[in-house]
């Protein structure tokens, strides 16, 4: 049966480590890319909208219409451009120059002052960017409501029965999308290191024939697997700490959890993705296929199905069930908790437990596949 010789294990680990550092692409993936991605997620992906570009066509004359117009121009969330015709404005929207427009019709002031009449204002938003379109609608509604209250006030009419919703954010007071995207993006980065990098490793050994050389030696299955896992685990943990440090000190994303909790959570997640990567490479034996399999089986699910950008609750039931099988989901949840809520074990325990299970599963799978290949 397979024993374990620490001498052999040490030698193998050293070999792996040398291979890692001699290949610039490992350094690229483990250190350069994560920092680059953090900057991109920090500055490039912004789901909060700074200033919405909208067009305004004011066909009315009269004080109230210009009042509404000024209210829109004065809003810090809107970047208003005026147009002279509907065609011009429509073309601007088709060409994505504006994300919405407002038409104040000619009879606006007249209908407004008539007590029995309602003055409609037309808003059109660009549905090809649904998220932004909803913000356009919400922002314009806000501006219009404030203007309405003001207008009623000025005319001596009391605004009857308005309900005002006052939002307060828990855990992320500034509501910057950055603070919730960055913890999630660290998950994607870890998946890349854990699964993508390692998926190539064993496959390459098979392709080059060095695996057979290893098999001919006294090296046991356990030593072989551990020698693959340990160096990449260390690499992954260093990268994780680097990412968290960069988020905290360069991007100023607050981290409220403890280092120990981060290491525990990180360990089990890394072991899971390492297991996935090694299982893929043992199964495919071919770098070309291993790379593509890793991309599709590890990376894309981590991007799409982990809850990092796209909310799991909004997915249909069968897909929600599928996400339970993806370790990235639990890591995203725990990392977001650590960053924004702190080390609350009541929140973390379920995720950590499931991560432990998944690491056992994937590493076990790899062990089983390796045995089959070796015999």
């Amino acid at each position, binding site marked *: 049966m397979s024993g374990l010789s620490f001498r052999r294990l040490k030698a193998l680990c050293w070999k792996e480590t040398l291979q890692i550092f001699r290949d610039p692409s490992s350094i690229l993936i483990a250190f350069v890319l994560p920092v680059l*991605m953090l900057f991109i997620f920090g500055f490039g992906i912004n*789901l909060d909208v700074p200033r919405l570009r909208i067009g305004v066509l004011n066909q009315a004359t009269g004080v109230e219409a210009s009042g509404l117009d000024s209210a829109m121009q004065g809003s810090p969330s809107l970047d208003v451009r005026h147009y002279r015709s509907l065609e011009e404005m429509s073309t601007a929207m088709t060409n994505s120059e504006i994300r919405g427009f407002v038409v104040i019709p000619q009879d606006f002031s007249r209908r407004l002052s008539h007590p029995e009449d309602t003055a409609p204002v*037309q808003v059109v938003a660009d*549905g090809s960017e649904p998220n932004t379109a909803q913000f356009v609608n919400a922002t314009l509604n806000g501006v219009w409501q404030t203007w309405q209250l003001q207008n009623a006030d000025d005319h001596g009419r009391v605004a009857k029965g308005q309900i005002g919703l006052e*939002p307060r954010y828990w855990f992320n007071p500034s509501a910057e999308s950055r603070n919730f995207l960055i913890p999630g993006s660290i998950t994607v980065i870890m998946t890349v290191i854990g699964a993508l990098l390692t998926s190539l490793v064993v496959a390459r050994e098979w392709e080059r024939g060095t695996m057979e050389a290893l098999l001919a030696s006294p090296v046991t299955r356990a030593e072989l697997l551990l020698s693959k896992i340990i160096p990449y685990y260390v690499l992954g943990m260093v990268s994780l700490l680097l990412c968290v440090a960069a988020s905290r000190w360069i991007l100023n994303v607050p981290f409220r959890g403890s280092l120990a909790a981060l290491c525990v959570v990180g360990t089990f997640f890394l072991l899971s993705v390492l297991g996935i990567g090694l299982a893929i490479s043992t199964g495919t034996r071919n770098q070309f296929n291993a790379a593509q399999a890793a991309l599709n089986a590890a990376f894309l699910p981590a991007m799409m199905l982990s809850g990092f950008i796209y909310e799991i609750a909004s997915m249909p039931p069968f897909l929600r069930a599928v996400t339970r099988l993806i370790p990235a989901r639990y890591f995203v949840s725990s990392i977001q908790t650590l960053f924004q809520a702190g080390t609350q074990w009541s929140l973390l325990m379920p995720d950590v437990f499931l991560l432990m299970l998944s690491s056992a599963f994937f590493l076990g799978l790899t062990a089983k596949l390796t045995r089959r290949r070796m015999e």
Partner: protein
Amino acid sequence: MNFFLRIRALVLKELQALFGDPSSRALLMMPVLLQTLLFPFAATLDVTNASIAIYNRDLGVPSTELVQRFSNSSAFTQILNVRSQEEMAHAVETRTALLAVSIPEDFSRQLAEGKSAPVQVLLDGRRSNSAQIAFGYLQGIVDGYVKDRTSASGKLPPSTLITRYWFNENLIYRHFTLANLVAVITTIGALILTALSVAREREQGTFDQLMVSPLTPEMIMIGKAVPAIIVAFFQATIILSAAVFAYHVPFRGSLLLLYVAMFFYALSLVGVGLFISSLCSTQQQAFLGAFSFMMPAMMLSGFAAPVENMPRWLQIATWPNPVRHFVEIVKGVFLKDASAGRVFSLIVPLIVIGIGTLGMAALMFRRKAA
């Protein structure tokens, strides 16, 4: 004549390598099918099926009716009635509720007296985007309620805001996602395939054999480019068909324009792939290098979040990113029936990028051959 015969031979060899091996075939088809089946359902920023906690201290009819309207909305399927401030906070903290609404005890009285009645809403900042959108829905429900109250009292509100959405009337997120998916799949296919295939030949030593043959570096590049473009077209067509026939995404523009744009896009990606692989000696390097380009490129392309949300300097810096232009083209052709003029103005950057990268790749290949 020789020129074309030789390239044809290369292209056929390449296609055989790609499609001859069953596992390779599977890997070209399966991911595309998988992504087309799963991701349009996964990738939505809509909020449906969210849970909302309600702390209602008011006993009057208006608050009950308002709460009723909240629960009737399709966005909120789980309503939690909580009895205290702590319970409310706990629900948000444990992610049991996305947001919590706190209605004060004098709510109905304030409304009856014609005054403004404030309502506090607590949002989970860890999921801030969903929370903000859910808040927007709440706002809509409240507006509807206020409108109904005013019209019930026989009076019309002085003015109303009527909102319509062009290009995607019901804001069906799937339309947006599938249009983007065409771009994404084409990217992965063309880029990774090209980079990996050259690197693989290099690792196996067959690249040197190619170099000592009568083929020039340019011919080899064309020989690698053509199969990659074919595969990209093939994969994109699968998604396009799925989008139009299975998901009923309206296709309003010109198919011809889209394929022309796709050709130039695939070409620019092939250029990038060839350039990256010309710098690498192993498959690992080529794959990770191409990936290191692809990730930032996709993130900064407007596929997940709009380009205009980025700071100005970043918007300018991402001009050389071909993905960004193609995503805009695909959305324009699919949803907005973009004109030929508009599409061509977006193809120009792709051509520039393509010429640049292919030129650099040719340069690198020549240097390595010499």
